[in-house]
């Protein structure tokens, strides 16, 4: 699947840019640290839009296309904003055999968005993830850092209600 590119306007602040430039300054001596810079940039902005990738490309002395190529290779990098509440459903084996696929499908229906999309109000975004290691709690999903385990489809409304 091609990575979804955000079409919402970029809202970076001068403070964020200053922080990014500091990170680049610390790493620019070694081009192999590109990914580390991108990871920290994503920590700052939440995603890696072209405005951010161009600063990284220029600062690290690599083509923008290379940064983009890397950003579309690794699942962790996002080209679109995350919602205020980012829901991630584990589709690892243990969770899958315990029905996490159902959870994922149902969430898409409830929220009216597809995978890696954000609701128009910016509240929820939804993605699937690989094993987060909470196999003992399977099936699990996370909302931001909160983990919900031993779930069934019936639990979803109650979980979402907490964030509405």
């Amino acid at each position, binding site marked *: *699947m*091609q*990575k979804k*590119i955000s079409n919402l306007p970029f809202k970076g602040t001068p403070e964020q840019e200053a922080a990014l430039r500091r990170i680049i300054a610390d790493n620019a001596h070694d081009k192999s640290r590109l990914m580390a810079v991108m990871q920290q940039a994503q920590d700052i902005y939440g995603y890696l839009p*072209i*405005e951010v*990738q*161009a600063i990284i*490309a*220029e600062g690290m002395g*690599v*083509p*923008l*296309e*290379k*940064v*983009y*190529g890397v950003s*579309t*290779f690794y699942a962790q990098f996002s*080209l679109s904003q995350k919602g205020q509440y980012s829901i991630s459903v584990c589709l690892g084996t243990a969770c899958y055999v315990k029905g996490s696929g159902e959870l994922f499908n149902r969430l898409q229906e409830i929220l009216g968005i597809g995978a890696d999309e954000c609701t128009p109000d910016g509240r929820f975004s939804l993605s699937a993830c690989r094993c987060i290691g909470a196999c003992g709690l399977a099936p699990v999903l996370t909302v931001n850092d909160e983990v919900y385990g031993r779930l069934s489809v019936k639990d979803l409304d109650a979980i979402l209600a907490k964030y509405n």
Partner: protein
Amino acid sequence: MDMVNLKINGIPVSVPKGSTILEAARAAGVEIPTLCYMKDINEIGACRICVVEATGARGLVTACVFPVAEGMEVQTNSQKVRNARRMTLEMILSTHEKKCLSCVRSTNCELQKLCLEYGVEETAFEGYRPHYEKDTSAPHLIRDNNKCILCRRCVAVCREQYVGVIGPNNRGIDTNIGCAFNQPLNATSCISCGQCTAVCPTGALVEKDDTDQVWAALNDRTKHVIVQTAPAVRATLGEAFGMPIGTNVEGKMVAALRRLGFERVFDTDFGADLTIVEEANELVERVKNNGTLPMITSCSPGWVKFAEYYYPELLPHLSSCKSPMQMTGAIIKTYYAEKMGWDPRDIVNVAVMPCTAKKFEIGRADQSAAGVPDMDIAITTRELSRMIARAGLRFASLPDEEFDSPLGEDTGAALIFGATGGVMEAALRTANDWISGKDCDKVDYTEVRGNASIKEALYTLGDLSIKVAVASGATAAKEVMDRIKNGTADWTFVEIMGCPGGCINGGGQPIQPQYIRDTVDVKSLRAKALYDADQASVLRKSHLSPAVTALYGHEKFFEAYGCHKAHEILHTSYTPRKKYSF
């Protein structure tokens, strides 16, 4: 050198240690098909078409990267190998848009050739394949990912050209070659060199075909359609008609152009000679007046675009001279139009170029000496070859004809513009004469010839010593510019060409399949055709070109080199460009 002995299909062969199976096979006279492999610059083992069986290796190995070992026995043509290759081709075909009948690369497509050889079933595997929008945004080429086989040869040459504006994006079945954020090519810092189109094995990257415009112009009786051809075209056009690499087909080319219906067949060589006198004059002015040095040539539109994107702060180093094509175009629409009593608006200037960036250059600002663009259409050598074919001309049996006068007159100095170092050598010939105040015997400046990406030399011209540098390819250009930027360069004059090897290896030149490019020194063979022609010329110095001297002499079109009018017509300006657009 340590040698390794092995057998390829039972044929004993001895090759240097560290050779690959592919190299050993070639040494043994056995060809192994390749798709992704490009010697030295793309040895990635990705396409898997070159698989062979080799003793001591598990399963099949890729010949392009697998090193030979003493006593190894290689089977390049076993049933197992043939089946594997056929299946790989069928895999590729299952994601390939099979519009071969209308594909410009049909009969010249490396994939098509292999599919025929291996007897593939076109639809053996069908299934999901991503669909891509064609990218027609750039003036010089069209990217059609639906035909891309992900061999990454374009990526390798684009990276070799430093700019790296296309690369692999996403992964798995959705991997595609493209620009950052799927932007169209014209939104990137692509320098239009077209090297990608010259190495693409299929029709995924092709020059933008402007021949319909040429045909239309030729069909329009109200227009004077004038063609000019770059120095390097005569050294390569024959390849498109099966002639050996390095055949100089100037006479047949002129005959063909005349038969296509061009009213005048002029030579960009004229503009090259003109460039030399104007550029040499500019250099002298800069030296005298403490101008910006080193001065750098500006003939190559790919290089100029590169400088505008990557070194905007160094643009004052570029000579303000237009390129030979633009100069010729400008003279046609001013001097020649005046002479013929034509309205420049009725002239259609067509150029046949080894270059795809010329398609971009004709649209540049500040290139309209007569109030209309100096040039109207730029086609590549490949496009011309297709026009010749469509017109039903049997190229090989055409007679040799001569360019029209006066803008068809040239010197040997202009001919070598087509190879890296040629502009420098031509300039040195003229500068030496001017500084010495006489017609010097020295014409050969061999230190600046050859395919090294950067060449430096120190010359004494009259009583003046100057250091010069010659670079070809954008990576070399970068190195040169960095040295200028950080103050470690002490050159007075620098020649830079956007393509490695110069125009003879331009992005618009006839396609040579990769196995030829890997095994034959294409650049040197093509360059040799030009140096031989230079050697055979009577006039070998630009300032002696009768067409050029006429302009400043008895024709009284220009008062002097670098005069106001010459600046109006023959010089231009540059603009910094933004690398990213959002």
